[in-house]
């Protein structure tokens, strides 16, 4: 049998999960976890070269192969970071070996669920995959079994389930809109078939469906009025999971929204999904930017920063058009890389200091120079300072918005600036000044952190023409 990359991307994590659940010994587990993630990444990259035909359940196109390579890449680097992080957690007794086995298995189940959601050509399968991803992350958030962790997991569970439920209602409505045109049965849920016939769908039904989908999947993206689960889940779970949540899972939910946006765009009589996404995006951006100021917990602060950036990305996708879509895709990629890098640094910082309270940290550049400067570089990148990659993508979002509707651009720039202020204010406390708290050296793995930052930096300075062409191509697909 010949090598099938599509099957490999799904089966490697699935088998790895089963194997990890059975294997005792966390060192072997951590290595196997990273190895499986690397193999998944390799198969994901091969999707660029071998493009299987879309079937009723799975689909590979330019849009989702971009997402899947990003997901598997960050999945791999996070698994490397996770190995040293978990090592330390075991040492200080915060985690029991049994839980670590469970943790590694869940990590691969999460990878499987995200890959399935991205590759599915069926809106029902996509829903089930996102539900599975939600469930696994809930369990990982609660893994420390402390008051706070259980509360965060519970909140995430309830809010995530309501979001998932609303998304299912939207999915049923899309099927109902499709049924008179496409016919009953499986075809009514196959995305490629839907998009081919969406012109003839009942626009009113599609409108209502999209509102439900936006609220449902928007909860998982962490858009502003629906974001309440996000800061808790990021702050209380293990840090590798915060990195995966911010860097990947939010993207996957956004990807689901984009698929439905493309569906509505085909139908001229349906409501334009753009303005809804623009509004929610701006609300999230401005709200989260102000929330950055009063944070006492370092992971919670960066969780709000994720809401802010998901707001910018949703805004840019809502604006639409080749340039804004290009900017949004680039921003999403840069944000995933940078935010996960920041969480890698934050994870080690919190381990060194033994706390997540910002007030108890200080002088990090003196006590742990490598870690401190890594964090500073990450925050400079996430704040959108030149010459790093996020500067370029934010600049593109802002300039393309100024060209089309200056009023919105003013709100956008205001939100971004407020956010930058909040981040730098806290960074000052953490990184400079008198050293506070324990000053032990970190046993950190710096490779994932600096690999991400190097990628973000090089993307800001020079992007290869082929990469630009690829993103332009995907941006055109999104309409």
């Amino acid at each position, binding site marked *: 049998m010949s090598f099938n990359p599509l099957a490999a991307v799904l089966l490697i994590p699935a088998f790895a999960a089963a194997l990890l659940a059975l294997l005792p010994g966390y060192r072997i587990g951590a290595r196997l976890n990273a190895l499986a993630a690397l193999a998944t990444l390799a198969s994901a990259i091969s999707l660029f070269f071998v493009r299987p035909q879309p079937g009723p359940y799975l689909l590979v196109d330019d849009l989702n192969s971009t997402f899947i390579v990003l997901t598997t890449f960050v999945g791999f680097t996070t698994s490397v970071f996770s190995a040293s992080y978990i090592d330390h957690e075991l040492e200080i007794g915060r985690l029991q070996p049994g839980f670590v086995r469970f943790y590694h298995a869940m990590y691969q189940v999460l990878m499987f669920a995200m890959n399935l959601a991205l590759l599915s050509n069926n809106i029902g399968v996509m829903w089930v995959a996102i539900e599975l991803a939600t469930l696994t992350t809930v369990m990982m958030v609660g893994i420390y079994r402390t008051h706070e962790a259980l*509360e965060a997991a*519970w909140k995430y569970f*309830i809010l995530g389930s309501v979001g998932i439920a609303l998304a299912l209602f939207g999915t049923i409505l899309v099927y109902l809109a499709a*049924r008179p045109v496409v016919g009953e049965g499986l075809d009514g*849920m196959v995305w490629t078939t839907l998009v081919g016939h969406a012109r003839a769908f009942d626009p009113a039904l599609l409108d209502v469906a999209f509102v439900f989908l936006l609220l449902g999947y928007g909860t998982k993206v962490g858009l502003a009025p629906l974001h309440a689960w996000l800061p808790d889940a990021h702050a209380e779970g293990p840090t590798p999971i915060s990195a995966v949540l911010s860097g990947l899972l939010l993207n996957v939910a956004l990807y689901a929204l984009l698929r439905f946006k493309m569906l509505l765009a085909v139908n001229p009589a349906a409501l334009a999904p753009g303005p809804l996404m623009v509004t929610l995006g701006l609300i999230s951006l401005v709200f989260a930017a102000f929330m950055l100021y009063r944070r006492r917990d370092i992971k*919670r602060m960066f969780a709000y920063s994720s809401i802010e950036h998901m707001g910018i990305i949703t805004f840019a996708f809502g604006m639409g058009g080749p340039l804004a879509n290009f900017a949004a895709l680039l921003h999403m990629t840069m944000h995933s890389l940078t935010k996960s890098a920041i969480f890698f640094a934050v994870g080690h910082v919190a381990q060194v200091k033994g706390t997540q309270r910002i007030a108890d940290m200080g002088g990090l550049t003196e006590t742990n120079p490598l870690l401190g400067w890594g964090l500073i570089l990450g925050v400079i990148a996430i704040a959108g300072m030149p010459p790093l990659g996020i500067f370029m993508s934010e600049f593109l979002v802002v300039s393309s918005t100024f060209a089309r509707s200056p009023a919105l651009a003013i709100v956008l720039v205001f939100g971004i600036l407020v956010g930058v202020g909040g981040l730098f204010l806290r960074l000052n406390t953490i990184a400079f000044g008198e050293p506070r708290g324990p000053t032990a050296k970190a046993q950190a793995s710096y490779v994932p952190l600096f690999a991400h930052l190097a990628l973000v930096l090089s993307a800001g300075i020079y992007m290869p023409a082929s990469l630009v062409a690829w993103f332009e191509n995907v941006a055109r697909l999104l309409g």
Partner: protein
Amino acid sequence: MNGIYFDIAHLLAGLLVLISFFQLYQDRLYALLNVFALHAFVLALSVAWQAFIQDAPHLYVTAALALLFKAIVIPVALHRIIIRLGIHREIEQVVGVGPAMLAGMGLVALAMVVMLRVTHGADPLTREDLAFALSVVLLGLLMMVTRRNAVGQVVGFMSLENGLVLAATGAKGMPLVVEISVAFSILIAFIVIGIFLFRIRERFDTVDVQALDRFRGERP
């Protein structure tokens, strides 16, 4: 479509909305769980009826699942859990019965207006089923926000989910319904196991969500 077929489907879906209203004003957890079991039982009947009139045997699986899992296993398990947690006393509702009922009526009216307006094309059975289903979903949401107690919220979520199953089975020929209902059952099982295994009561002294809030890292 045969008249009597339609009428029975209509009756069962309408009953679900009515039972959702019953749930809104139950102020004891025991009674609430009993009413929920009734809700799930009527759902099972409704799904079985849809399986019969649509000639879709796979829907019987969904019906059986609703009957066994949601009408029997979950209520019994929750009964035992609330005794173990010692919370089989009154439910504290955030808003009173009167305002909750009024809000519920408003939501049902909203569901009717929205769904009946946008589904001109669909056949009458699907239309009405959807309007009822959305009512049940919205009433479930309302229940989740009017309860402070975690078990009450879970019951609200489960009745919301019953509305979704009603919608999915009402949409004739929808694929993956069984798979989706299984996925939902797993979700619910995890919630219930979560309440039990995490021993929210022991850890937090209460399952009152407002009390949980105290432990947030944000407060100094």
